[in-house]
């Protein structure tokens, strides 16, 4: 049994408190009026910032009829008011998607009857415990955004929709109630699978006579994977692609999937290495770490493949209504946009290509941290250009939101680890997994 150390508990609580305070500061510092924006920008330009022009270009509000006068400042005002909301949204989604990626990985391990991974099942189950609190918080944020309490989704603003024929045409899908009901179905389905998978896994522990519960796990995992790939795709349209309601991409669901899948696998590796270093996972050897690192490596390349396929097809054909998506990103987000390619592709491919390095814990940890940061920036790049446009920077509200959810994530995950023995002793593949050697 794992016992949560006081230091870890305290650490996660401190993270949450610091994050919460920072977020409150971020929300309090939102400019309330156009005058405040003018003041701030004048101050900023005096320091030689001078990107006033690019801020005009940033789209996403569909209301930039006039560039001069107060219309511009109103535009910036909306962006700055969005900023703490958007950073909250990015961080909430990022940590939720880690838990979701782990859940998908867990289901695949059952459906494919993998022989190496059962010793890691309790780690995966603990990480997916974040799905429930994280999902509920995310659902609340989705509700607030979908009903236009904040200004994150343009399509949720009836005034914008009234003047926008394109969004009107999509209103059959993009409307507040449809949005929130779909979200409830997706989240409910995923949480239901998580609940039963963990329950069956615990029951299988006590069932020494047969594999009744294991077979049930197998069946619900296969069913979940079918449900998951449809709902994940639709969720990525709803929760991310609809930030740019004028834009669409057919492989977007896969792209988001690759991102959440590699983040999830990386988190499994990091938690496993941490627990192993504390002496809790006696059956985990460096071949298990090697396998996880191979997955990190492979799915990083898969993510890059999808990123490039999406980018290159749009860049190549250069159709105006599609290409604006990348033009805003390359013009306003040059460093994060290309920086994440280095973090999510070039770094892992060079570090994790060597079979020996994949067994060295600190190499895997280092690559894992870079991959996780890279995928945070990936989510950031998907959401921020449409919500804050050119007014972005990674400041107090972004970092605080990450700290808040990181603290919550650590707290929930490590508390869930204390709930069950770390070896799923009823699993029929357990012996094979204990002696797994590559």
């Amino acid at each position, binding site marked *: 049994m794992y016992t949560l150390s006081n230091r870890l508990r305290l650490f996660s609580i401190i993270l949450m408190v610091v994050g919460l305070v920072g977020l409150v500061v971020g929300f309090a510092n939102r400019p309330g009026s156009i005058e405040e924006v003018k003041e701030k920008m004048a101050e900023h330009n005096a320091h030689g910032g001078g990107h006033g022009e690019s801020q005009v270009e940033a789209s996403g509000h569909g209301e930039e009829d006039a560039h001069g006068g107060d219309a511009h400042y109103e535009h910036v005002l909306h962006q700055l008011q969005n900023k703490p909301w958007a950073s909250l949204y990015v961080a909430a989604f990022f940590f939720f998607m880690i838990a979701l990626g782990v859940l998908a990985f867990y289901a695949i391990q059952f459906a494919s009857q993998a022989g190496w991974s059962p010793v890691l099942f309790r780690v995966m189950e603990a990480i997916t415990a974040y799905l429930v609190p994280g999902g509920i918080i995310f659902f609340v944020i989705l509700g607030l955004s979908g009903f236009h309490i904040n200004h994150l989704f343009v399509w949720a603003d009836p005034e914008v929709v009234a003047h926008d024929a394109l969004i009107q045409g999509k209103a059959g899908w993009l409307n507040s109630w449809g949005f929130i009901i779909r979200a409830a179905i997706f989240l409910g389905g995923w949480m239901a699978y998580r609940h039963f998978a963990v329950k069956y896994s615990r029951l299988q522990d006590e069932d020494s006579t047969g594999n009744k519960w294991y077979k049930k796990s197998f069946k619900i995992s296969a069913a979940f994977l079918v449900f998951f790939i449809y709902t994940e795709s639709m969720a990525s349209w709803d929760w991310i692609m609809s930030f740019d309601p004028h834009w669409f991409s057919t492989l977007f669901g896969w792209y988001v999937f690759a991102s959440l899948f590699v983040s999830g696998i990386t988190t499994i590796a990091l938690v496993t290495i941490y627990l192993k270093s504390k002496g809790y996972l006696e059956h985990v050897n460096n071949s298990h770490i090697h396998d996880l690192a191979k997955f990190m490596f492979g799915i990083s390349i898969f993510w890059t493949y999808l990123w*490039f396929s999406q980018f*290159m097809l749009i*860049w*190549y054909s250069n159709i105006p209504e599609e290409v604006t998506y990348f033009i805003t990103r390359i013009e306003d987000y040059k460093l994060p946009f290309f920086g994440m390619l280095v973090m999510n592709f070039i770094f892992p491919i060079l570090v994790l290509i060597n079979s020996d390095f994949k067994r060295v814990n600190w190499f895997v940890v280092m690559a894992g941290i870079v991959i996780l940061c890279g995928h945070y920036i990936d989510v950031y790049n998907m959401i921020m250009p449409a919500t804050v446009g050119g007014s972005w920077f990674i400041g107090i509200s972004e970092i605080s939101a990450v700290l808040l959810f990181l603290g919550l994530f650590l707290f929930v995950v490590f508390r869930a680890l204390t709930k069950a023995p770390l070896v799923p002793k009823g699993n029929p593949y357990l012996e094979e997994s204990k002696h797994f050697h590559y």
Partner: protein
Amino acid sequence: MASKVIHALYIDDDILMDAVKKVRAEHYHIEEVYTPFPVHGLDKAMGLPHTRLAITSFMYGCVGLTVAILMMNYIMIEDWPQDIGGKPSFSYLENMPSFVPIMFELTVFFAAHLMVITFYMRSKLWPFKEAENPDVRTTDDHFLMEVDAGNHDIDQLTGFLGDTGAVEIKVIDKEEDNH
């Protein structure tokens, strides 16, 4: 000058593995082991060094990438930079996304083919090569361990090999420059 080697035949890969470990523990020198299929862990038991084929493959891949970049930079950017469908041929970087598929394929092409050729050269395989098989049964269902007799007592060594489970032991006179 002729030297003596001993051919010990086995019919089971587990017995072979045990025999290899015992022979190595007694510090006899194993010249070669012939098996009909890959025996997992045999290289480790024999103490063979790790292959470096993967490293060569990585370097060949780097060569392929370089070839692709230099070739397309010369053809598309330097030699005759035409406007083809509005693609920006002012610099390599500006038109890079359209070159990536070729860069990728040539990297894989070089890495794969040159590594295979390296493998053939290092393991001395080519068409019309004379097979070096000491016993035809080793391609079907027998395992053969070739032990260097050296200055050891032949009777003692064959006795020892018999104890390791060999079903057939032959003493062979071998020319020094046989391989």
